[in-house]
């Protein structure tokens, strides 16, 4: 069963426990700048939105990599192989969600890999804003659901005000 991170931004208090947990798990240090999940802070609105890669079904980052350093594992997770990554950063401009980022201290890129199936961020989240759940939906739907929720949460718009243009361009 494929599982995915489900983010309910309305529950996020901005404590950044997820960022700390991610950085510790993946980089061995408490450095939120190297976290693969980031909590965006809407200063004027006191709103917080956790944000990370949703493991696109056919990932833009993966397609753009010149040396095939990003592959898909059996769980559908897009994984960067450090031994192959040359650090060209093309994936960082190719991912239209901005969720694969360059780590200058290693000269490679980092992105969420769901911690191999046990995401530290969801374990660390005290409010249930980040949960790890079964996902029948594809990456596109995941992103839509996530994005609609977080955008609504972020802008105080009522529920279900997605723009009419968001017709699925995928699926058949």
């Amino acid at each position: 069963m494929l599982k995915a991170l489900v983010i309910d931004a309305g529950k996020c208090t901005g404590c950044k426990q997820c960022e700390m947990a991610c950085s510790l798990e993946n980089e061995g240090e408490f450095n939120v700048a190297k976290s693969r999940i980031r909590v965006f802070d809407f200063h004027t609105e006191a709103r917080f939105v956790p944000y990370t890669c949703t493991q696109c079904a056919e990932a833009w980052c993966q397609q753009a990599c010149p040396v095939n350093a990003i592959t898909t594992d059996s769980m559908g997770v897009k994984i960067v192989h450090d031994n192959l990554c040359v650090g060209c950063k093309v994936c960082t401009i190719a991912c239209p969600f901005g969720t694969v980022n360059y780590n200058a201290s290693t000269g490679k890129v980092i992105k969420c890999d769901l911690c191999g199936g046990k995401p530290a961020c969801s374990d660390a989240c005290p409010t249930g804003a980040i949960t790890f759940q079964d996902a029948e939906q594809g990456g596109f739907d995941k992103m839509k659901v996530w994005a609609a929720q977080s955008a609504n949460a972020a802008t105080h718009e009522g529920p279900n005000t997605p723009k009419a243009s968001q017709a699925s361009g995928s699926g058949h």
Partner: protein
Amino acid sequence: MKYAILGAGPAGVTAAETLRNVDPEASITLVGGEPEPPYSRMALPYFIYGKIDEGGTHLRQDPLHYNRENIRYLTGRCGGIDAQAKRLYMSGGEALEYDKLLIATGANPIMPPIPGAHLEGVETCWTLDDARNILKLAEKGSPVVLVGAGFIGSIILEALYLRGCDITVVELAPRMVARMMDETAGGMLGRWCEAKGVRVLTRTRVASIKQGAEGGPRLSVGLSSGINIPADLVVMAVGVRSNTGFLVGSGVKVNTGIAVDDYLQTTAPDIYAAGDCCEGVDLSTGKPDMLAIQPVAVEHGRIAALNMAGHKHRHRGSLNMNVLDTIGLISSSFGLWQGAQVGETGKLVDEGGYKYMKLEFEGDKLVGAQCVGMTDHVGMLRGLIQTGFRMGEWKDKLLAAPERLREAYISVAQGAPNAGPMAPHVNTPRAGLGHGGASGH
């Protein structure tokens, strides 16, 4: 069905794999122009400074990949095409029959007509073999003259710097990366390089290259300013030209690059083109242009292959974008970075801190961007530009404070970019033109 693909760069390899996916029975022949396994030119700088070995430049790591996919891989140069007989001739004379042909022969570096450009020690930096030569000549402390500070020159610059060479950059334009970024950004890059001990001579031309004096460096490079610079190695990176000479007389129309329609078909029947050799549509202008970048090559390769196999896929245009690391200062540019004809610009400039961000709007849509010294979440710029989201109230906020990009993105991007992650290969700038995942499953 017999498919032939000329060119084993990212466009050709992606096309071969796509054809295999959608047509398991087909005969697929992939022809590389160099006696190497398919590799990435983009990876060469990392090979030059030792971050990876030769194998690390390969497009697919497993040497048996092409066998396993039942893709026949040959190397050699194409000498000509007989579009009527559907046959192509290799320069060695052997013929190859095809039902559908893809031309993905990329580009060749331009060697400017400078006296002495043929001398030993004057190299281009384009092929794996060029890189091997440069490795031999670019020692720690070697004086090196790099001619050209465009995108490719600047990538090579970093590799030479990390090898410890003593570098002089000679560039005709008034700034570095003049075709990727504006004066502010190019100026920052230039100052950054100077601070790292690289001489950057803009508005300067190489007048001649001569043998160096006995006992000194092998070459002497005469500049338009009158000075001479000794060099063990001169690297030419003044530009590239599409590799299409073998098409003369074939009926395939070539402008600057190969002319293609929206389905990446050329003017000759059953011949398609993809990647750096062809003029695909630029998403920002809607006009054909040469966008010689990796993601576009992959997009083209995928779409051309689908069309060759009879799965009609229209190419709606690719977004121009680049990312560059200049000795640790990272810059990127997207779309209409020069700005729209009638538009508004938001800027954040920190000259001392080497930080720059410029956003270009047309109406309330983001159409272009440049960044220096910022890397986190820059992909959002692509997402916003490519999707053409209306920024609404966020436009004014971003004009005042471009650094609020992340907030703006989250607020505006209520859905994924149209066509979505499910179909990265087929970029639909507009909504409602849904045409399935390009994946063929």
